[in-house]
């Protein structure tokens, strides 16, 4: 701990203590635990870009990574919240299958309009989540057991609904959500000989996002200064704004050069922004961290612990239904084996992304980054012609290494106290 100004003798806290209006720049501490995950992603990207001779970052491949991994990322958002609260959900793969099958029955067999079917499917997902949340929160059965049972139960429900065969085809709108791209509204622009053309609308959208990101950060910094809170020095702040902006723009340009922005990317962006806000700023989000950080202290602070856990599982059910619809739309088929082992990828994404095994720690952006690391490893290795067994080997090793690092760094700080 840094030496706090030692008050001489006993200062009985009368009146304001030493004025503390100094807006001294925060000491630049390189927090390896927080930045480690982004560095890891950068390393993985650089590694596979080099190994594949640049193919990894090609327009079409980048687009593929997003579309192929989007449903895992959607699940990872819900999963990291549950892990922060100190629980786990093993059933999401089966719930993806069950909700996909449910959607197929309504759209394919009953010919219901797709918006009605989508809403009904989300409600179905919420009901599944409520079922599991009840047993975990109000019946005090460990989530591991409840969702292990759920994994079997909802796989059985899927097979009940579908029999032993797939069901399709889905309406165009659903297929577009899973697989399609935003149409170009403003035509292409040339980017020069080497790059070829790119969709103008996508690029304008990308610029808008980058400007928005920068504005939010500038405003937050201004507010912090107004409240005399410590802020990063200007150069570091500029770096923190510029680097993500450059990355986003690169990403958008590459996608614009292929077939525009995938719809799932738009959906994913909305979810990430929304859930990041909830975890950082909503009372509910704070309570998730409080429950996971110290359950007893949260209870004695008046947090309705059971209700928080219950609604987290409901939320997971809804996000599983979202993933179920995307996945079925992408394959244009709801199959009885859909979603197999999705839970493992989603859990791995959350832990690689810095969630703590004991709960109380984790971030939505971290889980997305963790998911991207897995996605890049998956995609990069398949570009290199690696066999599934090798991919599994690497992914298993990365997961173990990430959690081992978390436990090790925690033990180190505990020892340093």
């Amino acid at each position, binding site marked *: 701990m840094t030496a706090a100004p030692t008050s001489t003798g006993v200062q009985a*806290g009368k009146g304001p*203590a030493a004025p503390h209006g100094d807006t001294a720049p925060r000491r630049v501490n390189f927090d390896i635990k927080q930045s480690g995950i982004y560095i890891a992603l950068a390393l993985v990207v650089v590694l596979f870009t080099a190994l594949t001779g640049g193919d990894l970052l090609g327009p079409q491949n980048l687009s593929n990574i997003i579309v192929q991994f989007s449903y895992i990322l959607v699940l990872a958002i819900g999963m990291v919240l549950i892990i922060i609260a100190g629980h786990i959900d093993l059933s999401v793969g089966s719930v993806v299958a069950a909700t996909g099958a449910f959607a197929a029955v309504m759209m394919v067999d009953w010919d219901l309009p797709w918006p009605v079917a989508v809403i009904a499917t989300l409600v179905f997902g919420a009901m599944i989540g409520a079922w599991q949340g009840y047993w975990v929160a109000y019946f005090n059965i460990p989530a591991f057991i409840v969702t292990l049972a759920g994994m079997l139960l909802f796989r059985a429900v899927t097979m009940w609904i579908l029999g032993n065969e797939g069901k399709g085809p889905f309406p165009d709108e659903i297929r577009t959500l899973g697989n399609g791209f935003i149409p170009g509204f403003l035509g292409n622009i040339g980017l020069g000989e080497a790059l070829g053309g790119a969709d103008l609308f996508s690029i304008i959208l990308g610029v808008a996002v980058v400007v928005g990101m920068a504005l939010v950060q500038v405003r937050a910094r201004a507010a912090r200064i107004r*409240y005399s809170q410590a802020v990063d020095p200007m150069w570091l702040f500029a770096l923190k704004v510029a680097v993500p902006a450059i990355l986003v723009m690169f990403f958008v340009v590459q996608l614009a050069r292929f077939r525009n922005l995938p719809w799932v990317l738009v959906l994913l962006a909305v979810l990430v922004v929304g859930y990041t806000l909830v975890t950082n*700023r909503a009372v509910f989000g704070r309570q998730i961290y409080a429950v996971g950080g110290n359950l007893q202290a949260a209870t004695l*602070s*008046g947090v309705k612990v059971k209700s928080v856990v219950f609604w987290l599982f409901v939320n997971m059910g809804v996000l599983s239904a979202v993933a179920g619809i995307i996945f079925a739309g992408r394959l244009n088929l709801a199959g009885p084996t859909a979603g197999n082992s999705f839970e493992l990828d989603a859990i791995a994404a959350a832990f690689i992304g810095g969630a703590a095994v004991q709960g*109380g720690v984790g971030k939505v952006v971290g889980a997305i980054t963790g998911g991207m690391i897995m996605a890049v490893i998956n995609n990069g290795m398949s570009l290199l012609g690696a066999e599934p067994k090798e991919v599994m080997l690497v992914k298993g090793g990365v997961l173990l290494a990430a959690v081992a690092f978390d436990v090790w760094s925690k033990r180190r700080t505990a020892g340093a106290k």
Partner: protein
Amino acid sequence: MTDTILRMSGITKTFPGVKALQDVNLDVRRGEIHSICGENGAGKSTLMKVLSGVYPHGTYEGDIEFEGEPCKFSGIRDSEHRGIVIIHQELALASNLSIAENIFLGNEQAKRGWIDWNRTNAAADELLRRVGLSERAVTPVIELGVGKQQLVEIAKALSKQVKLLILDEPTAALNDEDSAHLLDLLRGLRDEGITCVIISHKLNEVMGISDRVTILRDGKTIWTANTPELTEEKIISGMVGRDMEHRYPDHTPKIGAEALRIEDWTVFSPSQPDRPLVNRVNMTLRRGEIVGLAGLMGAGRTELAMSVFGRSYGVNISGRLVKDGQEIQARTVREAIDHGMAYATEDRKRYGLNLIEDIKRNISAAALDKLAKAGWVDGNEEFRVADGFRASMNIKAPSVEAVVGKLSGGNQQKVVLSKWILTDPDILILDEPTRGIDVGAKYEIYTIINRLADEGKAILVISSELPELLGICDRIYTLSAGRITGEVPRAEATQESLMTLMTKEAQEVAP
């Protein structure tokens, strides 16, 4: 019969920042029952942990001599090997295993790694006969009451060829009948030549059963005496009399109207639903007044406080809470907070703080609604409020974004107090508010408590330190075995009179 079986001399044990034991001497004679008495925190349990090897040789200073030989125990197995067995207040039985399995746990009756069940159960039956427990050896422990479990523990000790049996508060959880049986059994064991050391708060039992008594206070031996030369008053005057080592801020109370009345409050134990931990308690708290609650370990102080605070402890709670003249229902912590109650726990690390979060998020944890609009927290306002507490409570940290787990005990306690002050309570229950914090920080906490009282809040302070209660409270209740045994204005209270009241209930129980 002056054969000394155990001699501990010059024992000093230091924890970071605290001297728990200072040059303690203890002589125990073979075949006697020796009682150790002292207030909470006097060092009794620490001394027994040193003796049994829980704190291994090398982590303390001083010498232990058992049966004339020096001992350097590196763990509890070593001391058990020599015939020293300790039975803790919290019984350590595996509740799903049978009596016989528990007795021989870690000492299995086996041949080449395979357990001989016939021998195990026969030997257990024999031991049960010795302790007078008429249960079958194959009965699971979970089916036994606490009294019988205590006997199983003693049988387990006998199976280890015990020479010196240490019992920490053996009758604290027992009813009169079971207590009487246990004490008879101990007398029987003494006649068989087994030496006993008993830690007890029940002075009548101490007088009734022990041959000699040793008093500990503030980690020091005060005296050892033969029981026939003693009276309960003499023991009490030895136990109390802690130095008024801390200064207490001057305070003239401005006592106002009644804020909370607790009527007929009864709470039963969650693990033994037929045993009342708090028994028909009546208390009154008034605005601007600091009320103390004194009681020895196990008297039910925390149980009383937590059950009042949204029924966060205990089962089958009955009684009435009347706030500002109106009966209120506080069935959950949330309801209690909404009714203007706050409870700062005695164990801030386990129950009070989220140690991995920063100061500001801990301070806001119980009052997020106040800092939020439509469910969204105003982060800047949260910072401003927390930083205000940092200044007014003198929390020593680089910023309110520092992680609470890295603060000192005193600063952590200030964070806990800030958290509850932010909820703007009318009634503040402070459970051991100065436990484990240094003298300077204690003074600051006392000043804060006075300030809160002056703002018109009703304050209940639970403390094991009698000088602290005498130093800051306007009125003090004493609690013993779940019952209020006294209510004394500060001017009339002394450490001796409080201790007499704190051990009163125990005296009424027939030995």
